[in-house]
């Protein structure tokens, strides 16, 4: 490895990156100053503004073909902190901003605050935490050194935990505590890893690290600890103990954020770690091990989802399974005969799966929330007739399901196509079997839910509450997005490769 250190400089428009992180923080501070009644309005302005900023950054990176960089305070790394927006970051930023905005629209019904009403706790917490999640996610996508990423990850966890127990029921409090404690265990492991890496290389900057990294036990130990810590936070099977109760117990809007957005943050860090900070260091055996964990997540998650009696739990277990798909990209990217082509394909497939799962799953949780609101329960066996009462909601659920199954033209299909292509190109057919089995199991539980909801009601259907139209539209909008995601193959899919080295640095092996 040449030990040359290229000093990065702040690029033009680099300040936009700061804006993307600062906007939500401003919103949080303002909400505390002005009080809970204004929190929704502040979020209503700042979240779309964040989306616009993300879009501008996306366009700049896509058209410029190179990353945007901002060096905070002009201090160069290793001492200073860089913000760096490459193709992966901008794609994720835009996708998550859309999802968060639509969740905001949906949440108006449950956490909307009217000017005349008394200030209540839940809306304030929800909107503040939503903005915090948006800021933390942007920080995860843009952070250029591993310690900044640690801080962002902790911010994300601290913003997510209160969302689990918004309604203060005992079960949700327990779920939140479980989540918090297990996440803390994960973050400590990550922190140990950063300490070891800093001790070895004297820097935590991702670009510098990728130039200096050597194959030595301390590095591998650090990487192992960080990866496992992130597994715990991503709820990769069998470390998913906190996910089902937390995601199923939270209010619908919060479940959507947790399942669609929050788990993607720690997953993104794993990608950053192995693809950017420590390129070429993941051994074939280790990548196969990660693949096995992903595969068992797909099979077990789907089977357990099939056996669930409550809709929200079913969707939560489906998240466990879908997280497994994300990890199949590691054995495919780091195969025995590395080639830059498959490496890029696997990475694209993984990112596409991340984004399409985010849109589809958010839509499904919203649909489940609307059903819960209308019926007062979400027992699958008693959902008969609801499809007639809430057709648009069930349509959104079905479309989201299609995306999870991976039928064309959804984003899930494109991701599956790329994954299968990579399995064949790298001659690892066993992952193809897992992908097929996972798709069939997914279609089974989607079919069961749809058939129950379309069937006749057990008793005359009584709707407890009318469901506002815009909530259904928000769910349907997200579902349609997940379907149309397959069309990105026509356009900006190349953006994912911006700012990436052409090939993995296989010279290390």
């Amino acid at each position, binding site marked *: 490895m040449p030990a040359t250190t290229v000093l990065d400089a702040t690029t033009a428009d680099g300040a936009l990156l700061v804006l993307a992180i600062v906007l939500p923080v401003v919103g949080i501070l303002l909400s505390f100053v002005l009080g809970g009644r204004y929190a929704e309005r502040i979020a209503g302005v700042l979240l779309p503004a964040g989306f616009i900023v993300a879009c501008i950054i996306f366009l700049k990176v896509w058209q410029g073909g190179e990353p945007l960089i901002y060096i905070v305070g002009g201090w160069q790394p290793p001492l200073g902190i860089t913000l760096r927006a490459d193709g992966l970051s901008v794609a994720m930023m835009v996708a998550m901003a859309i999802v968060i905005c639509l969740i905001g629209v949906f949440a108006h019904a449950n956490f909307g605050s009217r000017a005349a009403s008394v200030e209540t706790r839940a809306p304030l917490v929800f909107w503040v935490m939503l903005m915090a999640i948006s800021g933390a996610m942007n920080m995860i996508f843009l952070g250029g050194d591993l310690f900044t990423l640690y801080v962002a990850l902790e911010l994300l966890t601290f913003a997510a935990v209160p969302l689990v127990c918004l309604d203060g029921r005992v079960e949700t409090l327990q779920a939140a505590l*479980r989540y918090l404690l*297990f996440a803390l*265990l994960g973050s400590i*492991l990550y922190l140990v890893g950063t300490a070891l890496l800093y001790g070895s290389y004297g820097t935590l900057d991702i670009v510098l690290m990728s130039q200096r990294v050597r*194959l030595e*036990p301390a590095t*591998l*130990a650090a*990487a*192992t*600890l960080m*990866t*496992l810590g992130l*597994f*715990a936070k991503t709820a990769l*099977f*069998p*470390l998913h*103990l906190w996910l*089902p109760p937390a995601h199923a117990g939270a209010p619908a809007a919060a479940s959507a954020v947790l399942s669609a957005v929050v788990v993607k943050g720690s997953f993104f860090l794993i990608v950053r770690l192995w693809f950017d900070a420590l390129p070429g*260091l*993941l*051994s*074939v*055996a*280790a990548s196969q*091990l*990660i693949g096995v*964990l992903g595969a068992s997540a797909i099979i*077990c998650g789907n*089977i*357990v989802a*099939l*056996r669930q009696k409550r809709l929200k739990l079913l969707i939560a277990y489906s998240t466990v399974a879908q997280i497994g798909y994300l990890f199949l990209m590691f054995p495919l990217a780091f195969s025995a005969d590395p080639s830059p082509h498959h490496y890029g394909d696997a990475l694209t497939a993984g990112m596409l799966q991340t984004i399409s799962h985010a849109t589809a799953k958010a839509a499904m949780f919203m649909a489940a929330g609307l059903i819960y609101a209308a019926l007062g329960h979400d027992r699958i066996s008693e959902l008969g007739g609801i499809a007639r009462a809430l057709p648009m909601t069930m349509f959104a659920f079905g479309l989201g399901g*299609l995306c999870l*199954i991976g*039928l*064309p*033209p959804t984003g899930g299909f494109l991701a*599956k*196509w790329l994954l*299968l*292509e990579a399995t*064949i*190109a790298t001659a690892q057919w066993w992952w*193809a079997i897992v*992908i*097929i089995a996972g*798709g*069939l199991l997914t*279609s*089974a539980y989607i*079919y069961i839910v749809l*058939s129950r909801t*379309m*069937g*006749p009601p057990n008793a005359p259907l009584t709707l407890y509450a009318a469901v506002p139209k815009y909530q259904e539209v928000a769910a349907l909008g997200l579902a349609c997005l997940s379907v149309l995601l397959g069309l990105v*193959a*026509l356009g900006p899919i190349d953006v994912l490769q911006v700012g990436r080295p052409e090939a993995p640095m296989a010279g290390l*092996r």
Partner: protein
Amino acid sequence: MMETYPLLAGALLFPLGMLLACLWPGALLRMPSYLAFAPIPAFAAVLFVADVSPLVVGPPRLHLTFTLDLPGALLLGVAALLWITAGAYASPYLQGRPNRGRFAVCWLAALTGCIGVFLAADMVGFYLFLAMLTLGACGLIIQHETADAWRAGALYIGLGLLAETLLLIAFVLLAADIPGNGLLIADAAAALPTSPHRDLIISLLIAGFGMKAGLVPFHVWMPRAYAAAPTPAAAVLSGAAVKASILGMIRFLPLDTALPHTGTLLAAAGLFAALYGVVIGMTQRRPKVVLAYSSVSQMGFIVAVIGMGMIAGDGRAALAAIFYSANHVLVKGALFLSIGVIAATGRRYLWPMLLPVAIIAVGLGGLPLTGGALAKIVVDGPLGDGAANTVATLSAVGTTLLMLQFVRGLITTVSTDQEATAAPSLFWPWLSTAAASLVVPWALFLAVPEGMLPNPLAPELLWKALFPVLLGAILAAVVWRWVRRLPHIPEGDIVVVLDSCVKIAPAWGKTIEQAEGMLRRWHVAGISLLALTLALGAALLAQ
């Protein structure tokens, strides 16, 4: 001649536009009355498009290509006819029934998928429209929402998705073999014989399309699905939709290259299905189920023709198979529609109605002067003179027997009201389908240049066609006279095995659920975290 592009685009966009119009509640309400109009542009395209210049949609990086080649045009033409008449039949059928809107949506989705598959020239488009067809068809099957319908729908969609995943893998493999970035089916088929994964791809294609075509043992969905579906839906599914698999085989398999081993296997599987369908079908009582088993048999026969073509590397077998399929589209469609017509007819008017049914039914067995006889003449060449031809004759005997059984079963479903007659809006679509099934094969047959095929009116050919029919009729008489009780075999025969598998599945699921519950305990998760840390560390160090 008209310009190609607008016609091709119209054929697809018109039903697609109607489908999208269903998003508007007002349009959805009226849509069931207009189903017959949706396939008209497709039919017009078949009549007026003269060349095979492709229609390319989308940016150059990833575009969809559509073209109307000869096999596609033949199938699309007859399929569009059936969709038109069945659509006209569906409008009165739906009057006053629940879920009319959903029926219209699923109908239009299946129709768009069907037209798209027949027109698609690239793999992405083919796959996309095939998936659309499967989803739409599943929606049609579950229309009545009975427990049987849901089970049939589950079986159909499960096997359909499995088939599509196998096809997807085959397509991905094929895409790797195509030089350049294109995804055209023609290029893929051309590159297939020299592909390093040739045998794997061909097995995947045959398994995938075989499931869709109801090849034994993947036929289990057919009897259940057609029995559960509403009559017009069963007509288009068994007539038109299932032919997508035949077209897929013809488009993707390298029929110009002699592949004796694969061809023999395919032909054997097809011929076995041709006889199996007849034998099991004989034990069935419900007319719809009898027709479904006849479909199993006929589809098997078509697959056998393709297989024989593969043995010889004779590309003409493809066209023969298409001709046979085209005949089957209209005949099977008309027979399914007749179920509804006869059920609405009283005993007094039964015989005038039953006569055309009997003619086209026995025509499927090869009654001289019908389309069935012409189809048998066309496939005679590819089948050769060996064992395959003998089995084909046997299957013709069996088909006649089965069809007579169907007509006999049909008589028992006649309306209890002596004076009842079928409504004209049911009667005319049925009669025009029946008429088309007699006329269209002749028109197609006469379009073949003279000298390529023998004269169908030659006495020895007439006798050759008539003798299996006579034999079948005698057998039928024997069976009805002397065989007291036929064994009772459940609809979908070997699906019973699958059912029992489904019964033991919950036990396995429970075990996995319990294991998963164990893993979710705090200390177990903590220990697995540590164990995984050690494992991953070891795996990283072992390099």
